């Protein structure tokens, strides 16, 4: 009997709780009861309340009264397959260039109404009409960046200027990181071998797979943020913007882009074709393009902004950073392009094999 009573008590508590919440939202301004669902990458928006920063999502909610559900995905590939599998209702996603190109090709992205996004005029001209969206109908650039080698100078004393260091046997193997997704990892191996990151030559891709098998890597994505600054890893390829972020936690970290070339990318904001809240999404995109919001995100994250109004008011140190804003962009820096399905399948199968043998 006691048990039944306590069970009922717990149950009533639960319902009381939900009752409070639901009454809250119905009394709020958002009478339409629509929610904006955002799916971003981890650590890819300012969520800090420290000096000079503000929580961007919270600010948007306060200013507009629109309720936001904020989710993250780990890689472009996960985002793609989650959307393909259905059952998700994202209103805004942040895919990279090659992935949004693939999504546009497969009719997964809605055309934007740029009348609702007046702040688009802040975008620097060279980021308009990019190769993945030649008429600029679907996407608004969020950040751009490059991949480089990040290493801990307290553990690595030699000069680093090529991908070869990732295959070095001078370090305990699990101290060397590698991207835990086929596209980025293959790109590094392909570039090391002197091939294009966008190759569709199966022999070259198989050769790259053999290259990746030669080292016992620690395959990570967002774990990078824990491993690199804490000394849990000595060397690893990652994004320039994240280097500036982890540098604040550990001053021994250094960043270098290999002479043989690297990957340069744009990440965009866009609206999935299935979204029912395109107008709210456009309102959010416009908000993100505002100078103050962009400054907050850019200074917090360290990624490179394609937004002139934001760049103009950035901290001088960041503005002059070779890491974030390289003075020249050599031809060896390649943007990813969409690969044919057959090549994606091949890469994925080789990848499964690589990771399962990484003992």
């Amino acid at each position, binding site marked *: 009997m006691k048990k039944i009573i306590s069970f009922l008590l717990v149950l009533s508590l639960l319902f009381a709780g939900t009752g409070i919440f639901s009454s809250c939202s119905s009394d709020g301004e958002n009478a339409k009861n629509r929610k904006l669902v955002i799916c971003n990458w981890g650590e890819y928006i300012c969520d800090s309340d420290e000096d000079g920063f503000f929580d961007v999502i919270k600010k948007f909610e306060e200013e507009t009264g629109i309720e936001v559900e904020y989710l993250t995905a780990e890689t*472009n*590939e*996960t985002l*793609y*397959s*989650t959307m*393909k*599998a259905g059952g998700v209702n994202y209103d805004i996603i942040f895919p990279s260039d090659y992935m949004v190109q693939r999504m546009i090709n497969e009719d997964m992205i809605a055309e934007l109404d740029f009348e609702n996004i007046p702040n688009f005029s802040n975008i620097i001209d060279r980021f308009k009409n990019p190769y993945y969206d030649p008429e600029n109908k679907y996407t608004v650039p969020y950040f751009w960046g490059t991949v480089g080698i990040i290493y801990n100078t307290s553990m690595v004393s030699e000069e680093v200027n090529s991908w070869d260091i990732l295959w070095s046997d001078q370090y*305990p*193997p*699990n*101290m060397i990181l590698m991207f*835990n*997704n*086929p*596209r980025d990892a293959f790109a590094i191996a392909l570039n090391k071998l002197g091939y294009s990151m966008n190759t569709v030559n199966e022999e070259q891709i198989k050769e790259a797979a053999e290259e990746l098998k030669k080292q*016992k*890597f*620690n*395959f990570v994505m967002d*774990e990078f943020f*824990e*491993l690199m600054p*804490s*000394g*849990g*890893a000595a060397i690893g390829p990652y994004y320039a913007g994240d280097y500036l972020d982890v540098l604040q936690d550990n001053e021994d970290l250094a960043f270098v882009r290999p002479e043989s070339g690297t990957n340069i990318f744009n990440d965009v904001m866009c609206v999935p074709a299935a979204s029912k809240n395109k107008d709210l999404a456009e309102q959010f995109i416009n908000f993100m393009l505002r100078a103050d919001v962009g400054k907050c995100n850019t200074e917090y994250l360290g990624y490179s902004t394609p937004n002139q109004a934001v760049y103009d008011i950035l901290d001088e140190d960041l503005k002059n950073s070779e890491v974030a804003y390289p003075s020249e962009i050599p031809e060896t820096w390649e943007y990813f392009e969409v690969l044919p*399905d057959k090549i*994606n*399948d091949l*890469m*994925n*199968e080789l*990848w*499964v*094999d690589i*990771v*399962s*043998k*990484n*003992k």
Partner: protein
Amino acid sequence: MKSKKLLFPYTVWMAIFVVIPLFMVLYYAFTDKSGAFTLENLQYIPKHLPIYWDSLKVALISTAICLILAYPLALIMANMKASMQRMMNMLIMLPMWMNFILRICAWVIILRPNGILDSILGVFGFGPNTIYHTTTAIVIGVVYNYLPFMVLPIYTSVSKISRSVIEAGEDLGCNSFNVLRRIILPMSIPGIVTGITMVFVPAASTFVISLRLGGYSLIGDTIDQYYKGGSFNMQAGSMLSLVLMVIILISMAIMNRFDNGEDAGIV
């Protein structure tokens, strides 16, 4: 009549969340990307046999370790004061209140280079530890994660054994080792079998633990990669899941046979 009506919600639940997904797996395993019937996906099985073997090995070792750790613990627990038993129960369940991924991340921080274990070993002049990114690390993760599922069923079955049966054995001249071997052990077989099943099945299909702690992928991670990787190959993923299910079914059938046999022996 009444009892059948009460079964209705669960039947609906089963249909939606168990039976339909099973058929979907079956459907994808034997179709190609356009939806036409094909046996082509069978080609994925031989390619991944070594990964199945790795996974089974990890599952078997982890289950054995769980059993060795859990059985004495369950016996000791069953003989404790009631209040102590409740507290022990609580302590065993407590970690499960935390998110699974969070607990694995904690293990990474313990085992990784220059992690917590290394700094403790460093104080005594040992280290660095070499556990991170080995099969041992996966086994540690799996045992840590699934140990409660072994302890609780064994504890339940041991504590149900009537005190008088044990006393009768002692009266008839059994020493304590024989009491354990001839009375407690046989009578706790149902608990052991449940425990083994509840550890072995999730251990065989485990993922995240393997990649994060062991550095390489087992069959769970591989299936995940087929579903979530850029190629979105649900067909391959489904075929591999299907094979895993068959392997687990066979293992469970073997276990259950063992269970029934022993039960008959007791009666």
